């Protein structure tokens, strides 16, 4: 087992990984920017190195400083967390070349699945259903028009080097297609350094169903069941759950098997997630593969009882997966709400600032993954996530009730949060029914007038209970 691991991340995921390391008696090394000097992940690590000024590009994405810290601290391995450097093939490569184990898949697997067009082509060859569309990047407008005519409008234009919901546009006619392709190319070039785009059939209000996979370095690949992440606003996930409500057992089985095939097709190792879009007719299509631990991993941990981050460490240290596929069972239901420092009544504008008082909920079946504390400064330099609130109970209905109770107890004073928004969503009959698609949140927001600023009847603090 590793003696010492450097966590190349910040916030709640850095804490999560640190805790898993401590449980295995592994020494932890934190990195931080000057803005994160007082962060919990820094305070609780055995060692910590400042790697740059506040801006991510010069600190958390500063590969030379991070690798330098790793060599100075003489670590055995680096865990990249999610986001930041987790899916940068060069970072994985450079760790390996310095004799530091990268806790994740190979840089080749990261590169392959990072190229969205190439990933899709790989999946097709592996017999994993894919959304009909261009095979790889679109060469020119004429080819794009031809493909769109073949598969039928509406079509989605996506950046090959994109991800995380960025650089995507829907075209409903040929004239829109031509216009939007040039806009998409320009945006893609600016955001991802590549103007390659591909097109695929746009599915109306599909469900976003993803499967957690775990693969050891001895060729053993298993799945840990699916998650439903259809509650999204502008492609950013807000609420996730496991298992996917109302999914027919046979469909669930086929999707999970496809995910395992996908992982095998790219010789995947360590933890990963294969995302699918499922339409109303029960057709499912590969969307993308995330070659890292994901934000919403706790819902899978709670329904399967399997510690995914611990397995990441064990797998990277060469341990064979002790879990057989037949051992994996989903019990009960888990829901996660992402609590962000955003004002849902002001178009979800980010609200950085100091959290004067922070009091998370607790009790049976309630888990909070967060690095916030009273006095913590939510800085404007990084994402707005304050905490992940995850609950588990025997059934979905009970889990919803438990989540409502937990949100009520969650006090975060000093910044606006999305707690009241989650409370409203959980009251909605449509959410209760289950099986909502990716359009749900947008329609919910439109129906409730969330775009416009509400009048002053909302309280200034964001405690779940109306004080």
């Amino acid at each position, binding site marked *: 087992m590793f003696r010492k691991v450097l966590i190349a991340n910040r916030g709640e995921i850095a804490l999560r990984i640190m805790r898993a390391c401590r449980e295995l008696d592994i020494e932890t090394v934190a990195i931080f920017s*000057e803005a994160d000097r*007082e962060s919990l992940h820094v305070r609780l690590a055995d060692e910590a190195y400042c790697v740059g000024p506040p801006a991510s590009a010069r600190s958390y994405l500063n590969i*030379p400083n991070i690798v330098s*810290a790793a060599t100075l601290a003489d670590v055995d391995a680096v865990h990249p967390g999610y986001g930041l450097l987790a899916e940068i093939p060069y970072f994985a490569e450079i760790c390996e070349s310095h004799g530091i184990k990268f806790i994740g898949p190979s840089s080749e697997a990261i590169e392959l699945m990072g190229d969205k067009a190439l990933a899709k082509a790989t999946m097709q060859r592996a017999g994993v259903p894919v959304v009909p569309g261009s095979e790889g990047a679109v060469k020119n407008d004429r080819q794009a028009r031809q493909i769109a005519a073949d598969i039928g409008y509406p079509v989605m234009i996506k950046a090959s080097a994109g991800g995380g919901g960025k650089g995507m546009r829907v075209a409903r006619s040929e004239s829109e297609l031509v216009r939007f392709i040039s806009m998409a190319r320009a945006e893609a070039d600016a955001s991802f350094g590549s103007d390659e785009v591909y097109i695929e059939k746009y599915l109306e209000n599909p469900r976003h169903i993803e499967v957690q996979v775990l693969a050891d370095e001895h060729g053993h690949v298993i799945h840990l069941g699916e998650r439903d992440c259809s509650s999204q606003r502008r492609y950013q996930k807000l609420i996730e759950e496991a298992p996917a409500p109302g999914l027919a057992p046979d469909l669930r089985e086929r999707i999970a098997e496809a995910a395992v095939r996908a992982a095998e097709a790219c010789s995947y190792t360590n933890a990963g997630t294969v995302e699918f879009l499922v339409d109303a007719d029960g057709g499912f299509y590969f969307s993308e593969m995330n070659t890292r631990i994901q934000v919403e991993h706790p819902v899978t941990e709670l329904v399967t009882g399997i510690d995914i981050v611990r397995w990441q460490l064990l797998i990277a240290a060469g341990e064979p997966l002790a879990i057989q596929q037949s051992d994996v069972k989903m019990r009960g239901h888990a829901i996660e709400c992402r609590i962000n420092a955003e004002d849902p009544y002001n178009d979800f504008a980010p609200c950085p600032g100091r959290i004067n008082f922070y009091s998370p909920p607790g009790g049976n079946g309630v888990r909070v993954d967060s690095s916030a504390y009273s*006095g913590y400064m939510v800085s404007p330099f990084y994402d707005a996530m304050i905490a992940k609130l995850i609950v588990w109970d025997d059934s979905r209905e009970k889990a919803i009730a438990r989540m409502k109770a937990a949100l009520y107890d969650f006090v975060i004073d000093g910044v606006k949060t999305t707690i009241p928004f989650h409370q409203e969503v959980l009251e909605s009959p449509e959410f209760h029914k289950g099986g909502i698609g990716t359009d749900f949140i947008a329609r919910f927001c439109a129906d409730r007038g969330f775009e416009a600023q509400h009048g002053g009847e909302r309280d200034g603090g964001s405690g779940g209970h109306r004080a």
Partner: protein
Amino acid sequence: MSLPIDPEEIRALLHIIDESEAAEFSLEAEGLKIRIKKASAFNSRVVQLPGTIGFAGAAVQGTTGESEQEQAPGAGEQQQLAENHVTISAPMVGTFYRAPSPDAEPFVEVGDVVEPGQTLCIIEAMKLMNEIESDVRGRMVDILVENAEAVEYGQPLFIIEKL
């Protein structure tokens, strides 16, 4: 009780660690594992409780200070100290060296007058030697880091009195 190590040796070890600046010490040998951690090292990791929120302000000051003091790559970064004293801080993570090579003379000593562009030290990162230069003219007042010590981004290295 039979120990693989003489109690006298343990006492001597504790004394040495106490006297040194090391916060932690660990030793592993056949049949023996010793780990010594100083009280001060542990306390520095205690999380501040509500009511002691002053430190949060410090983080904000640090960032605004930073944005006003952007330097060209390769040069040390400045922070105001006393009247005309400036601090040169590490612009990267690495190992600090006082001299161009192990048997050479250090680049600077306390009391030396330095010129803008003059190399003050080397920070080695991933086998690459980076020369850190002064961007002021002044007298070297204090050298804050030992030779071959690890430095992090922003760690103060030198204090120079501007002339």
